[in-house]
C-alpha cells in the first residue's frame, strides 16, 4: 500500500505546443479512492498513463510511496491498470479467468492459486471457482473481472472508465461494488471518469481537470459546497448550478431587484459585475416581485418536489454554461405542492447564504 504524488507532472505530446497535462499536483493518501474527472480531452487518461509508466513525464515527478518512479518502467511500479474492456473466456474456469494474467507475469502455480482463492473469498465467488463463466449471472461475471485485477495485489489500482460501456442499471450496481470493494481492500486507487455523478458517489476525493489543468481537488462535499471557480461550479451537480451574471452596486449584487451581499473584493476587482451561483435546491421562489423575474417554460415533476425551468424575462441577464449557444434555463427545485404554472411569471433569489459568488473575469470564487 502506498501514497501517490503527482509533483508538477507535465506531459506535452510530440508535435503539440500545449501540455496535455500541465503541472499537475495531487497528493493521494494511502488507501484513498481518488477520482480524476473532467470533460473529454482534459487529460485524465494521460495523467493515469503517466502514473502507470506508459506515458513519458516531460517535467515534474511522480512518486509512489517514497519512491520516485518517474523513470521506472511500468513493471517496476507495482501498479495494476484495470482494462476498460475485459473478456471472459468461455472454456476457462472462473479460477483461471481470474488468475491467467499472473501466469503471464510468471507467478508460480501455488501462489496464483492462493491469490485467486483470497480474491474469490472477498468477491463471494469461492463456490464458483471451478465453474465456467457461462454458469454465472451478469453481476458475478463482472466480479470475476474485478478479481482479475485484485489477484495482482498491487500497491495502486488504476482504472480508466471501467464502467463506460455497461448499461445504466449494471453501471449503478457495479459502481457501488467497486467502491465498497476498494474500501475493504484499502488499496490506493485512481479512477478516471467523465461522469460527475460517478465521481461524486465513488470518490473519497475528486480531482477535476480542464484543459490539462487541475481546477480543484477536494472531497465531494467540498466540491459541491465550495467550488473553487466557475468551471467547477458548473461541472459538479446535476442539474447544474445556476450561474447568473449580475451587476454590483455599493449595497451588493442585484439579483433582479433583490440585493444580495457579496464579498467586498468582488465589487472591486470583478469590475461592475459578478457571477452569482445558486443551486436549484437553494432557490427562493416568490410571486411578489422580489428577485429575478423568470417566465416558466417547463415543469418536471419528481413527486415530492418539482423542477421549474424558466428564462429571465430581462434579456440582460445571461446564464453561464449554456452549450451550443442555446439559452440555458434557470432551474429551481420547488415543493411539489406549490408548483407554478407554465407561462407564469415568478421571482427567484438565493436562499439565505446558500450562494456562490465568482469573479466575472477570472472565474475565481470570491
Amino acid at each position, binding site marked *: 500500500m502506498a501514497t501517490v504524488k503527482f509533483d508538477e507532472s507535465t506531459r506535452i*505530446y*510530440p*508535435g503539440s505546443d500545449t501540455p496535455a497535462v500541465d503541472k499537475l499536483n495531487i497528493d493521494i493518501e494511502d488507501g484513498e479512492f481518488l477520482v480524476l474527472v473532467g470533460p473529454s480531452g482534459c487529460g485524465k487518461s494521460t495523467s493515469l*498513463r503517466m502514473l*502507470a509508466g*506508459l*506515458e*513519458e513525464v516531460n517535467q515534474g515527478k511522480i512518486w509512489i510511496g517514497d519512491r520516485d518512479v518517474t523513470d521506472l518502467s*511500468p513493471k517496476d511500479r507495482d501498479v495494476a491498470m484495470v*482494462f*476498460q*474492456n475485459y*473478456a*471472459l*473466456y*468461455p*472454456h*476457462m*474456469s472462473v479460477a*483461471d479467468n481470474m488468475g*491467467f*494474467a499472473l*501466469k*503471464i507475469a510468471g507467478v508460480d502455480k501455488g501462489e496464483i492459486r492462493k491469490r485467486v482463492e483470497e480474491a474469490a473469498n472477498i468477491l463471494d465467488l469461492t463456490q464458483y471457482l471451478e465453474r465456467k*463463466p*457461462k454458469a454465472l*449471472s*451478469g*453481476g458475478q*461475471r*463482472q466480479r470475476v*473481472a474485478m478479481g482479475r485485477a485484485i489477484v495482482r495485489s498491487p500497491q495502486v489500482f488504476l482504472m480508466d472508465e471501467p464502467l*463506460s*460501456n*455497461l*448499461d445504466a*442499471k*449494471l453501471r449503478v*450496481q457495479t459502481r457501488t461494488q467497486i467502491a465498497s470493494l476498494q474500501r475493504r481492500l484499502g488499496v490506493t486507487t485512481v479512477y478516471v471518469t467523465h461522469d460527475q455523478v460517478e465521481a461524486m458517489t465513488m470518490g473519497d476525493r475528486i480531482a477535476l481537470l480542464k484543459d490539462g489543468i487541475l481546477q480543484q481537488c477536494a472531497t465531494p462535499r467540498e466540491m459541491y459546497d465550495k467550488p473553487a471557480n466557475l468551471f467547477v461550479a458548473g461541472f459538479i451537480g446535476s442539474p447544474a448550478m445556476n450561474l447568473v451574471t449580475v451587476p454590483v452596486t455599493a449595497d451588493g449584487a442585484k439579483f433582479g431587484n433583490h440585493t444580495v451581499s457579496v464579498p467586498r473584493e468582488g465589487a472591486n476587482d470583478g469590475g461592475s459585475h459578478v457571477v452569482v451561483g445558486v443551486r436549484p435546491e437553494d432557490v427562493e421562489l416568490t410571486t411578489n416581485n422580489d428577485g429575478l423575474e423568470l417566465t416558466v417554460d417547463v415543469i418536471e415533476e419528481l413527486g415530492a418536489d418539482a423542477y421549474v425551468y424558466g428564462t429571465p424575462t430581462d434579456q440582460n441577464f445571461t446564464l453561464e454554461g449554456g452549450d451550443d449557444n442555446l439559452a440555458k434555463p434557470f432551474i429551481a427545485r420547488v415543493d411539489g405542492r406549490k408548483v407554478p404554472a407554465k407561462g407564469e411569471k415568478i421571482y427567484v433569489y438565493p436562499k439565505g447564504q446558500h450562494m456562490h459568488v465568482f469573479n466575472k473575469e477570472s472565474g475565481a470564487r470570491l
Partner: protein
Amino acid sequence: MALELTAARPDPALLDLPWRTPLEDWPEDILAALPRGISRHVVRFVRLSGRVLAIKEIKDDIARREYEMLRDLRRLHLPTVEPFAVVSGRVGVDGEPLDACLVTRHLQFSLPYRALYSQSLRKGTATRLIDALAVLLVRLHLTGFWWGDVSLSNTLFRRDAGSFAAYLVDAETGELRNRLSDGQREHDLDIARVNIAGELMDLEAGGLLQEERDPIEVSERIMTRYRELWAELTAEEHIVETERWRVDDRIRRLNKMGFDVDELEITTDFDGTTIRIQPKVVDSGHHSRRLLRLTGLDVRENQARRLLNDLEVFSAATGRQGEDEEIVAHDWLARVYEPVTRGVPASLLAKLEPAEVFHEVLEHRWYMAERARHDVPITDALADYVAKVLPGKPDERAVLGVDTEELPVIADRNA
C-alpha cells in the same frame, strides 16, 4: 421515442427488422449462423437485400461513436469492417427502451480466429495470425489510431496467399490522434499481449489448440513482430555520403515488406560526410497497388505478390520481358489467371476467393510437378485441384455452424 436510422446510404429494408425485440431473441429464420469471436455484447448476423449484416446491441452513444470511428478509419484506407447504420430509439413491445444497434457489413470470406481453430489447421497458424495482427497494429499506429482493445476476437482474418491479412472489427475503445506517443503504442501492445495470451489459453482449455506451443510464448510474438516492423518502417538510418545507393536499398526493403515510401526525410549533416534518412510517410499495399494498376485486380498484399511473381514467370517464359508491362499483364490475365479462376464450377465458388484459388492452384501444380518429376500445365493442375482438393474445403464466404460464444455482462435482474 421514434426509431431513428443513421446511415450514409440507408436501406429501407433495414426498417423491417424486428427492432422491438431484444437482439438476443430475434427469430432464427432471419439470422445467418456465422461464427463470431468472443464478445460482451450480443452480436447477430442477418441477411438483408442480398447481403449479410452484423448487428451489435450497444449503448446509443457508444454505437454512434464506433460508427463514426469506423467511417474515419475507412476514409484513412485502413482495413476495418464497413459501418452500415446505427439504429436507435428502439422500444420493446413492453414499452421499455432497448439499446441501440450498430450495423456493419459482414466481411466476406473473413474468419474469426475461433472458426479457424475449429478446422484442422496447418502448423503455425497461431503465429501467422499474430504476424497479420502485428501488421494491422503497426498500420493503425502509423495512422495515429490507438485501439485500446487489441485482441484476436476484435480482429477478422482473411486468407492471403497462404498467410493472413487482418481487419479491425471492434473500434469501441479507439481514439484517433495525429500521431501516437510511444507510451500509447506500448499501452496497446501491453493490452494485445494479455488478450492474446488469454485467448490462446482459452482455446487450449477447450482442447482446440492442436499446436504444442505455449500460449504465453506465442503471445510474446506480437511484441517482437510489432517492434521489428515498427523499427524497419520508422527508424532513422545514417549513411556515409559515398554509399548513397543505400537510400534506394532502404526503399526497396520497405517495398519488399509491402510498403511504399510516400515521404522520406533526407538530411545531410553539417560536414556533408553522412546523410540521415528516415521514412516519414509509409503506405502499405505496395504489391496490391501495382497489381491493380497493371491488371485491375484488387486483391490482398501477399496474393498480389504471388500473382506478380507468376506474371513475371509468364513474361520470361514467353520471352516478353522487354515489352510494355501493361500489355503483357493483360495477356497474362486473359491466358493464365482468368481461365483458372473461371474454371471453378459455380457450386464451389463460395469456398475460397478467386485470388486464393489461384494461389492454391499454383501450389498444387508445384506438388504435382514434384511428384511427377516434370512440369505440369496449369490446366491439368486446375482440373485435379477442382476434382480432389476444393470440394473438401469448407465454404468460407460465410462460414457456418461453429461454436461461438458471447458472455454478455448484464445487470442482475433481481438485484
